């Protein structure tokens, strides 16, 4: 089943064509990586796929509905979550509270003005469950700002998972994480996505090791167009694509 579909989308900023006639279909059960050099149009594509921007031409459909410019709140309500490359946390909130922000939104309890949050067992149980999946269950009372960089990243993604999304978009989830930790972080994310029954994961990634190890489909952008849309095997065995996407260095 098609979840997310871009039909001939272009995005122009004046004369500059950030994205030109890109079509992409993402279905149930996919784990897709979007790769490309800086300026290839990755960020623009992601902003279109998440309905933050409206395309100049073409349209993006999420579960059959046009999502041009719907904005983050509606997007979250329809079942798509997004985590950013730079860690986004609430510095003064605890780990538990951070996850609870999303849980409360998901359970439609945001506008309860006079009910006690700490006595809401429905929220507490979900927060526990999600924190457990990300190994944060014994840090619930810790202020978010006191976490290590890797933990902050996990918390950021954990709060996105707490929305129970069908599609989750992860923008370089291991950026700023040490190379010894990055596989651990990716494995945690994938396990969490599976247990949370997320239907599709879209990964924007520079790190070709991670793309080769985890993605089941690779979409390469170059100068605003789709250069390749292949499984990782054929993708990484094509020297021309690799040269364009990774640059002269090649892949180790």
């Amino acid at each position, binding site marked *: 089943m098609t979840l997310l579909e871009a039909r001939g989308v272009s995005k122009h900023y004046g004369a500059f064509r950030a994205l030109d006639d890109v079509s992409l279909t993402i279905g149930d059960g996919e784990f897709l990586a979007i790769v490309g050099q800086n300026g290839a149009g990755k960020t623009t594509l992601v902003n279109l796929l998440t309905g933050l921007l409206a395309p100049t031409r073409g349209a993006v459909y999420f579960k059959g509905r046009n999502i041009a410019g719907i904005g983050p709140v509606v997007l979250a309500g329809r079942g798509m979550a997004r985590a950013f490359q730079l860690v986004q946390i609430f510095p003064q909130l605890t780990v538990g509270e951070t996850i609870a922000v999303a849980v409360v939104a998901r359970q439609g309890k945001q506008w309860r003005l*006079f*009910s*006690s949050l*700490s006595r809401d067992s429905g929220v507490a149980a979900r927060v526990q469950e999600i924190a457990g999946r990300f190994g944060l269950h014994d840090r619930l009372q810790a202020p978010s700002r006191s976490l290590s960089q890797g933990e902050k990243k996990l918390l950021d993604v954990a709060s996105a998972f707490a929305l129970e999304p069908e599609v989750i978009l992860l923008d370089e989830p291991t950026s700023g994480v040490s190379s010894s930790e990055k596989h651990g972080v990716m494995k945690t994310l994938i396990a969490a996505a599976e247990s949370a029954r997320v239907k599709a994961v879209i990964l924007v990634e520079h790190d070709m090791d991670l793309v080769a190890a985890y993605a089941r489909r690779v979409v390469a952008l170059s100068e605003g167009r789709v250069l390749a849309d292949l499984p990782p095997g054929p993708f990484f065995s094509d020297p021309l694509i690799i040269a364009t996407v990774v640059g002269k260095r090649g892949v180790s």
Partner: protein
Amino acid sequence: MTSAPSALVKLSIASAFCALALVPLLAPPFYANLLITFFAYSIALLGLNLLFGYAGLLSFGHAMFLGVGAYGAAVVAGLWGVKPFEAAICAAAAAALVLAVPVGMLCVRFTGIFFGMLTLAFGMLAHAFLFKFYHLTGGDSGMRVPRMSILGMEFAAYNKVEFLAGPFYYYCLALLAVASLLMWRIVHSPFGLSLRSLRDNPQKAEYLGVRVRRFRLAAFCISAIYGAVGGSILALRSGLADPELVYWTHSGHLVFMTVLGGFSSFFGPIIGALAMTLLLDQLQSITQYWRFVLGAVLVAIVIFFPRGLAGIADDAMRAARTTDGGT
């Protein structure tokens, strides 16, 4: 997050409440009368701090809503001749809401200094309106607020001072207790959590499904209602709805009290209101340069105790707990 205050805090609140309840019995009426302004400011500041401490929006126009409360009471009791103070409070709260929705919708599009300046501008507009529309508002002489009944009782046997220092004092103390309880629930509710999330990181909050502007507007409206209730108390106490209540320096005064008490704590604004009320009374009787002293106090607080008096109290309580061996 713990929603119940610690035993030590509970004990402090209970003793403060008892002490306040004893004031009219033990102290001269002057002090009871003075503390009514403390109750009024506390209620107004609980609202201001929902906006400032919890939603991260610093308003320099909050006095406008105290004015709505004061002039609301003047209209209800003075012009319409409606006696129950409860009617004045409800009318003032409703009027504050009617004003807060459009003003808030414009202001919450901005944050930081732009929000502050816009609220300041609206406050100045309100002051100009009250000052210039003499036939409606009495201009610089304001509007008289006659004595009203509370809980359906006139207390006709009491003179004004006895009424204020007796029944009205307890009435306002009870109002403060109810207002605090309601605000405590609001800040510890899912709504309160959503507010704190958008204060910390509005972009992230949006991606987690928080409609940032709507929540800011809701906080603005609640703070306006609290301001109006505080304003009605001030007006009934002084018997006058005065345009000076709405002047921008009065908004600054409200911010001053919040910072003095500590905006990062729930009880900070109440502590700030008490400290300011007592300090101002003492200073004004000692020196004509009281503004100078107040300015120096504010400088010292901001530099040395950015968490305000509540922060100092909090640190002291923590220290007491550690020397006890911890509980």
